């Protein structure tokens, strides 16, 4: 033992005058660190109630509850997370996982009450002192619990795609599809937005499980056109996909397509195993488009005999005659249609109601009718000179190409319009070797066409002139040509709101000559086959039917659907109309068999 060791303990006195580390509560509050994981903050206006926080919470500390302020709507369940601080472990996985980015944590960590049941609150809805606290934990940039970027889709390069009518989109390979399917967070917010309410998370899961037959079965529950929709669906689902808020939405459409592409047509019957009985009822369907055939499919499954009357030589309606094969190859459309037909659907081609058979005859012969005649009449611009023979309709050009006829567009084409028909007419013209200018009266952002279609048409060399208003068609020196006079437009905000309106600038007019002008500014219904008496009974507004809850009309046994009866005018809405009409028709035909407690037909 040495002296130094003996004295060493007394060294402690040196530190007696240092500042203590401890603090005195509540006099000296100690705030948490800037990124502290304290109490939850939810920006409830940004929250979409997807419930992913609830799902990831390993402690079962989060409930999704109804709150007064929010109602369910497309893209928002209206539910909000409620936290049980008797269970929370402040791991913040809920924050990391929140696709909306509405959830984070404050750096507050003291909450004192004598009643332990109080530690239970709906963040962002009930008042808390920390809701507006700018500090606290949030997901760091560059850190994700799911991949935010979509797996890119391979497509034909534009210089190749423009050479033929081959399908542009390659479709996912299996590894790509598995990666993309993996990104889904399975919240199911998309299901409400899908017009057909397809079981999206479930069929995406079937991809992850590599059970594509299950995927096909799931899709046919709500949609007998999966090969078609997997290619050309307007995919409203993707617009509300929560993953799209801070990243890129799941490629739901391409995944749907992937499933169908894995199944051979000859295996459909075995996989779907659809039963078709015989109810003794006969249903007539007018129009073999997606609406009519969707109705036919579900009606056959209910056991009803189905006869479809189709004015054209082939089934498919706008899908066949309006959508070019580079977007929807015939073989894939036929894959859908052939299966429906295989269930015993009788299609009478080249049969126009009102001309070949009177509508009243159908009313007499069948137990129920479903009208889905679509929009087949091109809208007119109503400008001078429009009747010039070199002014073609977009629909006609597309129908000609679909039927193997040459629409004769020439070498230099102007397309008027900004919808999908305009884009397709333009791209078809490119494929026929023409130089194409698209004239559109508003901005690209206002175009009703699919963003991808606009982008692809540009890539394929279509020249888009925006804010260009056609004012007159003028005969050119050669009868093979035609001139168009158009004026530039300024976009002016309407004081009453809504999208800005184009205002023609009369001092900035242009005249240009083309081999043809393709007018594609929209289309309307053709209801000439209905007599005035019948029209009067079928509530018609702005040229469209206004059906009731089950697609029914005030005329007993007549149901309507598709473009001619809805505002959205897309394939998936028509498919849903057909499905729902089948439900309505079945309820109408079997009133006693109703097991549902919901609203009655008629």
């Amino acid at each position, binding site marked *: 033992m040495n002296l130094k060791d003996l004295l060493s303990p007394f060294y402690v006195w040196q530190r007696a005058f240092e500042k203590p580390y401890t603090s005195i509560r509540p006099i000296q509050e100690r705030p948490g660190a800037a990124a502290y994981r304290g109490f939850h903050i939810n920006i409830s206006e940004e929250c979409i109630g997807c419930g992913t926080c609830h799902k990831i919470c390993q402690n079962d500390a989060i409930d999704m509850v109804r709150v007064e302020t929010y109602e369910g709507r497309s893209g928002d369940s209206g539910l909000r997370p409620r936290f049980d601080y008797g269970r929370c472990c402040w791991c913040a996985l809920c924050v990391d996982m929140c696709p909306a980015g509405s959830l984070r944590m404050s750096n507050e960590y003291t909450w004192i009450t004598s009643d332990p049941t109080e530690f239970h609150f709906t963040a962002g809805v009930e008042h808390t002192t920390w809701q507006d606290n700018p500090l606290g934990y949030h997901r760091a940039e560059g850190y994700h619990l799911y991949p935010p970027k979509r797996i890119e889709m391979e497509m034909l390069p534009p210089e190749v795609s423009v050479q033929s009518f081959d399908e542009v989109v390659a479709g996912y390979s299996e590894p790509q599809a598995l990666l993309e399917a993996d990104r889904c967070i399975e919240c199911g917010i998309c299901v409400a937005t899908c017009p057909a309410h397809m079981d999206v998370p479930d069929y995406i899961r079937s991809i992850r499980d590599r059970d594509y037959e299950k995927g096909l079965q799931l899709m046919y529950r709500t949609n007998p056109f999966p090969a078609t929709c997997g290619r050309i669906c307007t995919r409203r689902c993707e617009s509300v996909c929560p993953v799209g808020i801070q990243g890129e939405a799941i490629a739901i459409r391409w995944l749907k397509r992937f499933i169908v592409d894995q199944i051979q047509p000859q295996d459909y019957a075995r996989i779907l195993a659809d039963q078709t009985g015989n109810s003794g009822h006969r249903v007539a369907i007018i129009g073999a488009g997606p609406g009519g055939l969707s109705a036919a499919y579900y009606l056959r499954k209910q056991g009803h005999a189905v006869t479809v009357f189709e004015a054209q030589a082939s089934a498919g309606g706008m899908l066949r005659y309006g959508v070019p094969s580079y977007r929807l190859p015939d073989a894939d459309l036929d894959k859908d249609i052939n299966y429906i037909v295989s269930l015993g659907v009788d299609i009478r081609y080249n049969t126009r109601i009102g001309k070949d058979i009177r509508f009243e005859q159908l009313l007499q012969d069948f137990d129920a009718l479903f009208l889905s005649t679509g929009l087949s009449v091109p809208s007119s611009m109503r*400008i*001078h000179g429009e009747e010039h023979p070199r002014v073609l309709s977009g629909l006609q050009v597309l129908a000609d190409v679909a039927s193997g006829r040459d629409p004769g567009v020439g070498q230099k084409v102007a397309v008027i319009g900004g919808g999908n028909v305009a884009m397709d007419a333009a791209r078809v013209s490119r494929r026929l070797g023409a130089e194409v200018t698209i004239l559109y*009266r508003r901005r690209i952002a206002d175009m*009703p066409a699919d963003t991808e279609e606009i982008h692809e048409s540009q890539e394929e060399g279509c020249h888009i002139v925006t804010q260009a208003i056609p004012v007159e068609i003028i005969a050119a020196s050669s009868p093979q040509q035609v001139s168009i006079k158009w004026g530039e437009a300024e976009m002016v905000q309407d004081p*009453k709101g*809504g999208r800005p309106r184009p205002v*023609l600038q*009369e001092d900035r007019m242009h005249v240009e000559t083309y081999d043809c002008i393709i007018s594609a500014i929209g289309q309307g219904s053709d209801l000439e086959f209905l007599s005035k008496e019948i029209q009067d009974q*079928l509530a018609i507004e702005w040229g469209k039917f206004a059906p009731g809850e089950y697609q029914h009309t005030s005329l007993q046994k007549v149901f309507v659907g598709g473009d001619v009866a809805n505002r959205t005018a897309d394939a998936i809405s028509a498919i849903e109309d057909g499905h729902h009409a089948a439900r309505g028709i079945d309820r109408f035909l079997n009133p006693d068999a109703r097991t549902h407690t919901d609203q009655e037909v008629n």
Partner: protein
Amino acid sequence: MNSVDEILDYAIDQEQQAADFYADLAGRAEKAGMKEILLDFAAEEQSHKQRLLAVKAGDHKLTPEQQVLDLKISDYLVEVGASANISYQDALIVAMKRERAAFQLYSDMAAKVPEGHLKEVLQGLAKEEAKHKLFFESEYDDRVLRDN
């Protein structure tokens, strides 16, 4: 026509005639759903008339200085006939063209009279018609040109 009251009476009469025109067309309309639409047009004209009656009674003031947006849609469209088989698009064209003609009429008249109350009234009426034109042109822009 040289007094303010005469001018207003004329304008009120014009609105009534327009309302009668649409009501008559509605009675004959063949296309499904057009009857209701044309009756709506007639009601719209009736409301124009009521507004002018209020001006005449001194309950409401014209606003000749007001800026009204001119979409210039009807200016370049073809004339269409008001047949019983009229479509919605054509009905709107008819309406737009009628409002445009009235606007032109009052504008021309205003240009021919000296500065003063009468000129202001005519200019005010022209602005009223411009607003009616904008109403129908907006409707055309929203419905007919919706996908365009």
